[in-house]
Structures are given as C-alpha cells and as structure tokens.
C-alpha cells in the first residue's frame, strides 16, 4: 500500500437538528479515484452526510478536509468549484430549461463570473460551451433529448441527465444519492457503464445506494451508518457478513428470536 493522501476526509463531524443527533462524530477517509458506498438503514444519515459534504447543511462540529485543505467553512456554492459535485435523491433538474440548458448549468462551477454570464450560449449554435455540453450529452447517449424539456422525460433518462450535469462541473469527487433507485435493470446497466467510464477518468465516487448487487459489483469499500454513527468500514462482501451491520438492517438475533417466539 502506497502512502497516498486521502482526497476527502471527514473528521469527527456532527450535526444536530433540534435535540436529534443525525450525524454523530462521523469520520472516514476516501482515497483518490476510489469507489466508496455509504450504506445503512433508512434514517441512518446517509443523505445528511452528503448534505454536510456539500454544505447544504453546515456542520455543528468537526472538520471536512479536501485534499489536505480544511473546507469546513467554504460556502455551498463554492464547493462545486473545488471539485465536489453531487446528484440528488429526488432528481433536481430545472423544469423550465431544456436538457441542453440544464447540463450547461453544470458548467457554472468554473464559469459563473460576471463576465461569463454574457456568454451567448443560446444565441449561436456554434458557441463553445454549447458545443461542449452537446458533446457530453452525445457521449452519454442522450444527444437526441438535447432540446426537450426535462419534465416529460422518463425517470431513468432524467437521472442520467443529472449525472451529465454534475460531470460538466469537472468534479474530482462525485456524490451520487441513490443513482440506481427507480431504474429498471437495463437502465441500471447503462448507469453502471456511465459510472465506470467516469471512474476510469479518475473521478472519486461516493455512492449512497440500497441496491447491494450494484454496490457489490461497483464499489471497493463501504462505510456503514446507523443512527448517524459509523458502525463498519470494510469491503461490500465483509459488510454483508458483519453481525453489527446485519443487526442494523434486520434487528438483533435476540429480537428476531423474540419475534419468532411471539
């Protein structure tokens, strides 16, 4: 094992909502180009962890370190410019923009200065940013949807558009919140190819997902959360055998025994 330094590090991160500890002293590291899954039962704090990494919520305590730099106090809109992009559990594409315009919003990360705002992206078909966005859609096999509005498109297509939008910000870390949820098997396969391609280009992937087959086939490591605490950090295979993990998902053997007895 080489002594590579982690690209992302959470150090004792906590978040309370009212009196409720949703994330409790969470620490983990992610190495460059790694594929990590964040798993756990409903309400374990997986999406909250993403929201803290992207500063949708500010941490109450602890540090978030990106590439050795403390970014705990960097505001949300600047984190994507540092290389942290995300997709949302419930797709958040802009309903009044076309697919092409939506993915061009992804270019804002390195391109939202006052001057950049005057780029005539919709005035000339040959505009460099427009062409670039079109090529990205084409490469993802979504070229034919470029000029459609997003609302009417199938769920699976919208998910992949959101992925292209995130990728156009040229992220170093991509946070995917349940990318395979609601997809049929062929859509899941297309998604996995798209993610494999992304991973090959060196983008670090952190995935919240329930589909254990997907995780087993795609991720090298899992971080397991339960009630906001990390209860395991291991390979997907080991996680399935871990008694603590099984207990978190299924309840303890004792409880199970009681249920059977009743």
């Amino acid at each position, binding site marked *: 094992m080489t002594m590579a330094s982690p690209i992302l590090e959470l150090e004792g991160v906590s978040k309370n909502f009212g009196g409720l500890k949703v994330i409790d002293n969470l620490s983990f590291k992610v190495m460059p180009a790694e594929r990590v899954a964040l798993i756990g039962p409903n309400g374990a704090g997986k999406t909250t962890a993403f929201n803290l990494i992207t500063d949708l919520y500010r941490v109450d305590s602890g540090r978030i370190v990106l590439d050795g730099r403390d970014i705990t106090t960097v505001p949300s*809109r600047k984190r994507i410019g540092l290389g942290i992009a995300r997709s949302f559990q419930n797709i958040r594409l802009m309903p009044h923009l076309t697919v092409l315009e939506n993915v061009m919003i992804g270019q804002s990360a390195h391109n939202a200065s006052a001057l950049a*705002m005057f780029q005539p992206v919709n005035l000339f078909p040959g505009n460099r940013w427009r062409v670039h966005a079109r090529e990205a859609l084409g490469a993802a096999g979504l070229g034919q949807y470029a000029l459609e509005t997003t609302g009417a498109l199938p769920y699976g297509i919208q998910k992949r558009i959101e992925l292209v939008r995130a990728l156009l910000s040229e992220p170093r870390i991509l946070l995917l919140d349940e990318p395979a949820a609601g997809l049929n098997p062929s859509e899941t396969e297309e998604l996995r190819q798209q993610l494999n391609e992304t991973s090959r280009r060196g983008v670090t992937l952190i995935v919240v997902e329930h589909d254990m087959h997907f995780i087993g086939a795609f991720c090298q490591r899992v971080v397991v959360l339960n009630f906001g605490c990390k209860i395991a950090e291991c390979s997907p295979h080991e996680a399935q055998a871990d008694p603590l993990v099984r207990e978190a998902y299924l309840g303890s053997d004792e409880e199970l025994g009681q249920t059977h007895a009743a």
Partner: protein
Amino acid sequence: MTGYLEGVFVLLAINIILAYGAFLPMAAGQLNLGVAGFVAMGAYIAAYLSNEYAWTPLAAALAASIATAAIAFVVAFPILRTRGIYLALATFALGQVVQATILNLNVVGGASGYPVSTFLGGGMVGAVALAVVIVVIALFHTRLGISLTAVSDDEIAADMMGLSVRWLQTVAFTLGSAVAALGGALYAHHFSFVEAQNFGIMASLYIVLYVLLGGTQTVWGPILGAAVFTLLPELLRGSASWRYVIFACLIIAVMVFRPQGVVTTGMLRRLLDVCRPRALPQGGK
C-alpha cells in the same frame, strides 16, 4: 398616422418597456410590486435633468435609468433578504415610499405634478422600446438567461451548481429597475407632464399583470401581455362603460385556464417544431 393611433402606439411601446422592468426580477423568481416606484424615479430624475440642466431627452432618460439602477442596487440588499409574499410586501412598501417622497418634494412640484419642458416624439419612443426588446431578448440567450431561470426553478440546486443566487437576484432586480426607469423617463418626455399619483400600487399591479398574463417563462410573454393590456381596452371602447368589466373577466379567465401565462416554453417549442423543416429527425450529433 392619426393622433389617436400614435397615442396608442406610444403607450404600447412604453408598456412593453415597463413589462420588461417587472419581468426581469420575475424571471429570477421575485415579484416586484414596487416597480411603479422605479418608473416614477426614472420619470422624475429625467424630467429634472431636462428642466434644470437642459439635457436632451435621450441623455436625460439614459442618466435617469443609470441613477435608478444605482438606487435599486443599494435597496436590493435589505429588500432581497425577504422571500415570497414578504418580498412582494417589501417591494410594495418601497413603491409607496417613493410615491410619498415625491409628493413631499416641492422642487419637483409635489402633489401638483411636474411639467416637462422638452418633448420626445413617438418614433423615438418606439425606437428605444425596440432596442430594449432586442437587448433583453439577447440577454436571455446568454448564460445569464439560463442562470436566472435556474434560480427561479430551484434555488438550492442552482446554488449547488455554483451559481450565486443572491447575486443573480440582485442583478435581475437592478436591471429590471433600470428598464422600468427608462420607460418612466420616456413617458415623462412624451406626455410632458408627470404626477406622483400615476405611479401608485395600481400602476405596479398593471405592469406585473402584463407579465403574469403574457407568461413569465419566456421573453415573449411580456410583449404579448403589454400588447393585450394596451390594445384590448381600446378595442372594447365600443362597449363603453362595460369594457373594464369584460376586460377584468378576461383576465380571470386567463388566470383560471392558463395560470402559467399565455406564452410558455412548451408552446414556443411546439411552434418551432411546426415551422422547422424536418431535416434533422435524429436531432443533434
């Protein structure tokens, strides 16, 4: 052109400009119910420059527009801290403050109104309106246009994508106020008289209605809305005192059957599809 027709034409040109003044902040998701206050600022500042410093009408209008933009930019910071209905109320109050201030300013005639010494012809008003339309349409084909729509669609996702929501909303509010002020300045110089009473909440409501009726999603909506609001009352003149009743019922009907406004992005796309030759069935490369 008869005097009557020219009068209607000039009103149409000015109303289109005012509609864009309300449209710009609305495109970023902000309802500005104080837009008439900015129209008043533009009208009075331009009139004052013409009367006291003998500026030409166009130079005065331009300067008034820039000065109003500066004021709007400053008030944007406290005003845009509020959201939704509170933003609407805050802008409404701002409009009232402007109106009341003018009523108390004796240097511009106070409640008795303010005559304007120089005159701007209908042709020139039309030309400026055309320029405003072209500039706004061009602006909405830039990254700014899609970014404003993104902010009004989903502020959180826009922020996560790296857009500065506050900055974009401030820009939209400031630009809208500048455009509204330009319309006010043209109004002052064409009709040669301004009085504060004309710039109250009813004026703001009408201007906002142009946009809501025409549609807030595209740059074409405000033109249509302003045209309908200017021309329809004239066409209904035949039915004399009932025309405003018919007019109001039509507004209700549009709001019930087409709450998103008459012109929408979907409608424009379908129109384009019909007009476009079927050369690229597979679309894009």
